[in-house]
């Protein structure tokens, strides 16, 4: 059993750590409130955009275009150059948040033959750079305080690479907040866009399985005629920027809310654990102290007894 001094030192250090985790809890709960608000404001746009894009695309004529990656050159390529936009946090201490994103991204990257990583957030950058992954270092953004402007700059960068055909496929790996207790890493393909053909097949497959967001009405209307003004090509050009920007912005907001949520929960459980440890340590401390006192008393009594015996002997 450790002595009282040692236990006291431990108690002190746990108390100090608890102060830090408690302060971080307060801070992240404040930031979470802000991030949540932003998320709630963005959600109609984020989901509306995804819905509208897939509806528009389902009415698009069959055409060969760079953005669909179905031109003759594209079909001839055997190895697709894949780009992954990975959104992690800037800081650690957020439970499994960063770890989950990194793990998913690493698995995806390992599967891809020709890959390039575009990292948002410091934690992911450190991880992938130290593993000598092909990271694009010119793509340097923070995950903190997402803004539309940042999403726009990111989009320009990525779409430009795509147009120069340095990338054939672009994925984004981010964390979606399902509710305050649950968050999930999601992978979404941004480019190339889904073709009319593909969406139709998907809808039919879903219909056969009777699951997914299969929608009878949507299936019936896939072949409906739709005016695309001024021309499919021009709309497509605009749509790509809109879609990528809107999606990246949404993903950034979702991720930052998830990060704060994860950090808050991690700090909450750290504080709880510290409290439990303090409780058991103070119990142990008391026990040790009691044992020491008991021992001392026993020793005193034992000594006194011995002395008395000695005196008696002398008297005799």
């Amino acid at each position, binding site marked *: 059993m450790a002595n009282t001094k040692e236990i006291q030192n431990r108690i002190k250090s746990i108390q100090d750590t608890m102060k830090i985790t408690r302060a971080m809890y307060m801070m992240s709960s404040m930031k979470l409130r802000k991030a949540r608000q932003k998320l709630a404001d963005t959600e109609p746009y984020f989901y509306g955009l995804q819905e509208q894009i897939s509806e528009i695309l389902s009415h698009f004529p069959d055409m060969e275009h760079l953005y669909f990656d179905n031109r003759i050159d594209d079909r001839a390529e055997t190895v697709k150059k894949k780009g992954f936009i990975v959104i992690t946090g800037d800081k650690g201490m957020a439970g499994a948040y960063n770890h989950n994103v990194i793990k998913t991204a690493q698995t995806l990257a390992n599967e891809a033959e020709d890959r390039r990583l575009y990292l948002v957030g410091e934690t992911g950058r450190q991880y992938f750079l130290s593993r000598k992954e092909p990271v694009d270092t010119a793509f340097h953004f923070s995950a903190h305080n997402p803004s539309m402007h940042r999403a*726009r700059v990111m989009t320009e960068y990525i779409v430009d690479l795509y147009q120069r055909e340095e990338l054939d496929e672009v994925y984004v790996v981010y964390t979606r907040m399902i509710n305050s207790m649950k968050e999930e890493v999601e992978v979404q393909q941004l480019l190339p866009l889904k073709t009319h053909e593909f969406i139709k097949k998907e809808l039919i497959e879903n219909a056969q399985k009777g699951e997914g967001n299969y929608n009878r009405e949507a299936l019936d209307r896939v072949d409906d005629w739709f*005016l695309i003004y001024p021309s499919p090509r021009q709309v497509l050009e605009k749509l790509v920027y809109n879609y990528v920007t809107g999606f990246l912005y949404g993903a950034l907001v979702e991720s930052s809310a998830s990060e704060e949520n994860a950090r808050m929960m991690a700090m909450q459980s750290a504080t709880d654990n510290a409290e439990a440890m303090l409780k058991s340590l103070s119990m142990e401390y008391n026990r040790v102290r009691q044992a020491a006192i008991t021992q001392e008393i026993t020793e005193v009594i034992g000594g006194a007894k011995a002395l008395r015996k000695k005196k008696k002997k002398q008297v005799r």
Partner: protein
Amino acid sequence: MRTFSLKIIACDRVFYDGECTMLVFPGFDGEMAVMAGHEAMTSTIEIGEIRYQLPDGSWQYAVVSDGLLKVDRSKVNLLVYSAEKPEEIDAFRAEAAAARAREQLQQKQSLQEYRISQASLARAMARLRGAGKNVPR
């Protein structure tokens, strides 16, 4: 007059969701109007000012940055990055943004940066115009 339901969604809020009789928006080659019974259509919206007429006959104005529009069976969906009422526009901020964008355009930039500055200049000018200020040349 017949009405149709109009939904304008900006990235930070649902700007308008309700009935309207006519919508005028800046399209690819000039302004375009949509009324009830319009054929199904998809189009793009440029940076500029939109206006829509409510069933009571009053016109509402808003400054939008670019986005997409979908007309479908008496339902019109507008998805734009931002939408603001003229009275919400911060003219000072827009002016500062315009000045900043002009300055950036003066400098030598990559094509990406050039496009971003150009778009911000267009947005700032649209805001200023919407706020009823003279656009400084």
